[in-house]
């Protein structure tokens, strides 16, 4: 029994325990120095056969698969050997994503919507990875994979309508901006609750296998939310049923203001999580578009051959804030972005194309301009459908629809109330003004 008068706890002849609370290496004002991160050499990692057992490729969960070297050339067995047209398409999608992010971020600052999230610095992890999948492979993204939609040719105006929650938004203004959904593009509806999509992707893949289908599933999740129980469930079910699924972990170092150490990065890599489950684990340079493509293609081949699921850690850096509601200067060093040892994925792919004589700075400048103009014109087109809070939203009754397949009596009664309130709040406006018709 502890004596309340004695401040020393019971068993005081044992050493005192100490709680470790992780702390990032750099805070605002600090000089960022990433020289301790071992990025290895491009081309140095072996590329095993896709049917390799996870325990026979352990080192790939700790190293870093890289293809693009300091010389901007492709190196080693992971070089996917893509033709120049495909590389230019990839670069074009990545440039478009960046232009889109710039414009939408500005749109939020101009009050056209409530919220936006950029993926600056992480473009390759969605664009290049999804280009390695078949267009009808099902993707279960998190919230920073707009690159998948751009790469799959989803109409940009639909994305902007959704971000503006306007009358053109086919999700009827119900979802927070960027929570897209497109069944036509095999793109699952994005949830605001983190990591829930990971067991769902596994379930979809199990269903595909039950049916003897040939389509596989892939999911994206941030390193921070791998701490959720859902991710553990996803890994367990994927391993147990040998599900044809790819679990992509985007390790961008930051989960809002919490660095990756709060998800366990001080102790091991995220790719190494795979080994305990018996999943194949790959750790990849997420700023190297060719490595991203090659790793996803390897995992897709593996899944398609019933050889098993793969967990891929994309080691990258979130170059901007978490969202428009976040200010990273309050918690991390502003130097981190420029000091990041793996550079900028768009620049690295551009430099590669130039190095192999398939591109030049003028064409890049022209492409960047074209992207910016396309986004601007599409934005103007979308604005005809309204911007958030300017009346051009969906009719009130849509608020009550799709809760169930059929409207039950209690929702019908509540819908009548909403209509009554509308007439009191806005007596001069005709119902059609709300529908924007």
């Amino acid at each position: 029994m502890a004596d309340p008068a004695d401040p020393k706890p019971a068993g005081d002849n044992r050493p005192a325990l100490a709680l470790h609370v992780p702390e990032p290496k750099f805070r605002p004002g600090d000089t960022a120095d990433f020289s301790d991160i071992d990025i290895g050499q491009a081309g140095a990692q072996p590329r095993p056969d896709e049917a390799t057992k996870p325990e026979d490729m352990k080192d790939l969960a700790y190293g870093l698969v890289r293809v693009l070297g300091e010389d901007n050339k492709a190196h080693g067995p992971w070089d996917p050997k893509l033709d120049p047209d495909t590389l230019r398409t990839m670069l074009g999608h990545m440039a478009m994503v960046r232009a889109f992010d710039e414009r939408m971020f500005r749109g939020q600052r101009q009050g056209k919507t409530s919220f936006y999230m950029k993926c600056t610095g992480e473009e390759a992890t969605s664009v290049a990875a999804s280009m390695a999948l078949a267009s009808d492979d099902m993707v279960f993204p998190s919230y920073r994979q707009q690159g998948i939609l751009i790469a799959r040719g989803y109409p940009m105006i639909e994305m902007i309508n959704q971000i503006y929650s306007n009358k053109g938004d086919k999700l009827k203004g119900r979802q927070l901006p960027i929570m897209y959904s497109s069944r036509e593009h095999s793109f699952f509806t994005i949830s605001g609750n983190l990591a829930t999509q990971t067991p769902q992707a596994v379930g979809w893949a199990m269903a595909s296998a039950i049916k003897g289908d040939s389509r596989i599933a892939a999911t994206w999740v941030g390193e921070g939310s791998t701490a959720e129980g859902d991710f553990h469930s996803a890994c367990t079910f994927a391993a147990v049923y040998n599900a044809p699924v790819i679990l992509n972990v985007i390790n961008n170092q930051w989960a809002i203001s919490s660095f990756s150490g709060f998800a366990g990065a001080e102790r091991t890599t995220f790719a190494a999580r795979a080994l305990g489950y018996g999943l194949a684990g790959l750790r990849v340079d997420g700023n190297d578009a060719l490595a991203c493509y090659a790793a996803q293609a390897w995992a897709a081949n593996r899944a398609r051959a019933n050889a098993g699921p793969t967990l891929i850690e994309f080691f990258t850096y979130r170059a901007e804030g978490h969202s428009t509601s976040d200010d990273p200067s309050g918690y991390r060093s502003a130097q981190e972005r420029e000091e990041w040892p793996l550079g900028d994925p768009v620049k690295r792919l551009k430099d590669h194309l130039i190095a192999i004589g398939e591109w030049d700075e003028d064409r890049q400048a022209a492409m960047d301009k074209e992207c910016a103009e396309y986004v601007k014109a599409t934005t103007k087109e979308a604005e005809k459908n309204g911007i958030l809070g300017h009346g051009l939203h969906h009719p009130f009754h849509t608020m009550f629809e799709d809760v169930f397949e059929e409207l039950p009596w209690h929702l019908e009664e509540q819908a009548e109330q909403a209509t009554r309130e509308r007439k009191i709040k806005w007596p001069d406006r005709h119902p059609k003004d709300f529908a924007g018709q």
Partner: protein
Amino acid sequence: MSAQTDIASPQGESHAEERRLNMIEAINEALDVMLERDEDVIVMGEDVGYFGGVFRCTAGLQEKHGKTRVFDTPISECGIIGVAVGMGAYGLRPVPEIQFADYIYPGLDQLISEAARLRYRSATEYIAPLTVRSPFGGGIFGGQTHSQSPESLFTHVSGLKTVIPATPYDAKGLLISCIEDNDPVIFFEPKRIYNGPFSGFYDKPVEPWKKHKDSAVPEGYYTIPLGKARHVTEGEQVTMLAYGTMVHVAEAVCRDKGVEADILDLRTLVPLDIEAIEASVKKTGRCLIVHEATRTSGFGAELSALVTERCFYHLEAPVERVTGFDTPYPHSLEWAYFPGPVRIGEALDKILQD
């Protein structure tokens, strides 16, 4: 184990081949019928495969329909519901079993934030046509983690339907309707009455289902629509609203006391058969609500509010609730906790005297 028990009907007349099933057999048959009719139906859960479920509800189904249609899962309710949502997005119609309702909480995020919201948030692009089956309620000395009645957690969630059968006939017809429904449904099976209706007199011998008229279960496919209550008894003195095990306890208490009650078995809590409730309360002028779940914010509170809002000027006495106590379900004091004949009897005396 045979899923059906053929016995002669009590009358021994033209219904000679009328089959009598207990609730477990009726549920097993509903799953069997739907696995047969619809190739997209999948049954999964802890111990449901080779073994056939801890309560035997899935006995024989894996052998008959195969390992990719009926299979065991890891002990992970989050994973079970999560993969079921993904399977539903693919186009399957999963029927996951959660071994006890008390175990369902790790799956709540997948139910509340995902299954219940898919149709709405994707504007019908994706739906979650799951039926989550789970035994619930006490009366079998299950202690606090095998006895709970968490239905009001689910009725509070927009986008979920909650269904609770009280007889073998209803269990089969309602379960088939749930599996065919395109919305996520929580199907709570009152485990105390799996093997026989329960009068609430725990010290009396258990009656088997075969003596109860609603154990006559037709073969093959039939449905009972969701959202429709069942009239258990007709009476003028008082309306009693109940579901699951408590339907039988309410009926037995009224029989013993000679009370002529209008007993409604709600069967579906969401969507609720408000018309049947209103009609009954307007007829009797008195309303007693009986459920086993804890009292505060229980579904009885919702029922009481609805009856008061809609039938106030027809009421001759305050609405009464008989419920479990607001404590964890105790093990040794189970029958002190259970809202049995004494608690219901007192409430009846009070509401009839007012």
